[in-house]
């Protein structure tokens, strides 16, 4: 049986964009920009896009498309004995999706609760006490939070229904889940801009502070933002591109995916900051007090702003959480698909069966995050998945292509079938700039880690978090060894 294929180039590109565009585009980029020089942040951000985002995307699309294999086999073809890195990428991604699905579960809960704006007047307590039922610390597991558990179940059923029939439905769903959040963001923006204080919000977002560009940490933040928002180092992009023909235009597909992802982030900033501007105006608090990122922005600050709106509260809440939901689901099923692609390269089982077992496994794995201590564990493991897992995988990919496969050979290979030709700059970027940048990011991370334990958590819990990610790579090594022996 031949390799499964995307129905069209558009289906592939949209699915890749859908994978890249996720919750971070809404809750991380605008805050990063605000905190790192406002509009001036766009300069290092764009630079990072050119020197790290697009080149790593080209490497991942190139590996999948030219090798016609999932992450582990693609890397094994580049250099024998390195397939375990590919397994490592997808197993870490599997761990990631187990807790990412929990954030989607929260979105489901808020989506239903938005019909009555149930959080109005007690937003913080609503999220932490009523929904999460948060315990005192990571050791106080204290049973399940039933709303989160149900949300998780709905999420995994949805993911299973999207992926079990193969790439056809995935391409169709991606068309909806990529376009829908953009339309919804536009609605949020239009509503936001009509509220008092919204223009001040936009000014905070865009007003440049060029003096911040002299600060190295702003540049590292830009590199980190680009890297983590493009779904790189997870094996997903290699898996997705392994289903396009070998003669596909790798370079242009990479440019489109990266520009679209960053375009959504930039636009999301307007939607978010108009609402934050309104919240600052409505509460009389300075803007710096209302601005936030991550979970706090999505599940506390935004609900507060929604509750303070004069009209259309529940509709606005529904639209906001539907936006998060569609962004999250898209990224989640792509992570599962990456894992399944690698698995099906070695296991002869129908897509339906593999999908069922993989979704069931991830649901069970994610049960720890549905407990009352779930948020703590989610935070700890997420910290290590991103900084230990993804960065390592991308670094190894670049070193393998740049120093072992031959970057000139790779460049010629992708240029042969691409409209946009890569110049010699690509060699310098892949061989030197990306490895140096990723190593700098890792050094900064380790330095901070040893200075102060992350998040004030007990050291033993951090050891478990880091150990879990490291053990993914150890398991990968043995799986790959076994698979290669059989081959």
């Amino acid at each position, binding site marked *: 049986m031949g390799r499964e*294929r*995307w*129905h*069209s*180039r558009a289906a592939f590109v949209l699915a890749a964009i859908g994978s890249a565009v996720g919750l971070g585009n809404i809750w991380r980029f605008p805050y990063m920009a605000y905190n790192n020089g*406002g*509009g*001036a942040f*766009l300069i290092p951000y*764009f630079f990072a896009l050119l020197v790290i985002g697009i080149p790593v995307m080209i490497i991942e699309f190139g590996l999948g498309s030219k090798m016609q294999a999932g992450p582990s086999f693609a890397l094994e073809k580049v250099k024998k004995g390195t397939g375990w890195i590919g397994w490592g990428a997808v197993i870490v991604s599997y761990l990631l999706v187990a807790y990412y699905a929990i954030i989607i579960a929260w979105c489901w809960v808020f989506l239903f609760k938005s019909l009555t704006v149930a959080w109005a007047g007690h937003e913080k307590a609503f999220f932490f006490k009523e929904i999460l039922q948060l315990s005192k610390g990571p050791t106080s597991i204290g049973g399940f939070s039933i709303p989160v558990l149900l949300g998780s179940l709905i999420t995994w059923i949805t993911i299973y229904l999207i992926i079990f029939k193969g790439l056809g439905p995935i391409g169709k769903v991606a068309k909806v889940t990529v376009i829908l959040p953009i339309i919804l963001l536009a609605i949020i923006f239009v509503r936001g801009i009509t509220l008092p204080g919204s*223009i001040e919000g*936009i*000014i905070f977002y*865009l*007003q*440049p502070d060029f003096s911040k560009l002299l600060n190295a940490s702003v540049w590292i933040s830009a590199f980190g933002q680009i890297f983590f928002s493009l779904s790189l180092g997870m094996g997903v992009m290699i898996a997705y591109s392994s289903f*396009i*023909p070998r*003669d*596909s*235009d790798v370079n*242009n597909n990479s*440019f*489109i995916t990266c*520009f*679209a992802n*960053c*375009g959504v982030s*930039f636009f999301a900033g307007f939607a978010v900051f108009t609402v934050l501007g309104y919240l600052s105006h409505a509460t009389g608090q300075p803007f710096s007090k209302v601005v936030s990122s991550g979970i706090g922005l999505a599940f506390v600050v935004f609900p507060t702003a929604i509750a303070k709106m004069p009209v259309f509260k529940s509709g606005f809440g529904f639209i906001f959480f539907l936006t998060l939901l569609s962004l999250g689901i898209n990224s989640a099923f792509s992570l599962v698909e990456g894992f399944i692609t690698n698995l099906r390269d070695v296991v002869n089982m129908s897509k339906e069966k593999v999908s069922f077992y993989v979704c069931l496994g991830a649901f069970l794995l994610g049960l720890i995050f549905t407990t009352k201590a779930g948020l703590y564990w989610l935070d700890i493991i997420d910290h290590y998945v991103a900084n230990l897992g993804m960065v390592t995988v991308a670094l190894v990919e670049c070193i393998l292509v740049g120093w072992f496969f031959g970057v000139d050979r790779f460049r010629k290979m992708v240029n042969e079938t691409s*409209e*946009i030709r890569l110049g010699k700059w690509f060699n310098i970027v892949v061989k030197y700039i990306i490895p140096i940048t990723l190593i700098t990011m890792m050094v900064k991370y380790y330095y901070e880690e040893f200075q102060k334990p992350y998040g004030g958590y007990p050291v033993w819990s951090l050891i478990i978090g880091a150990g879990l990610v490291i053990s993914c790579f150890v398991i990968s090594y043995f799986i790959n060894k076994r698979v290669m022996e059989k081959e």
Partner: protein
Amino acid sequence: MPMSAWIMLIFGVVVLYGGLIYCVSKTRRHEKKSPAKDTID
């Protein structure tokens, strides 16, 4: 809105959406030249 904010707005729009539109238009031209490429069915 201050002029500097307008300039950054225009910079972001031109670079990100201009880049995207340029790449998509290149794809269209490419597909007109060789329509069968990159598609399976």
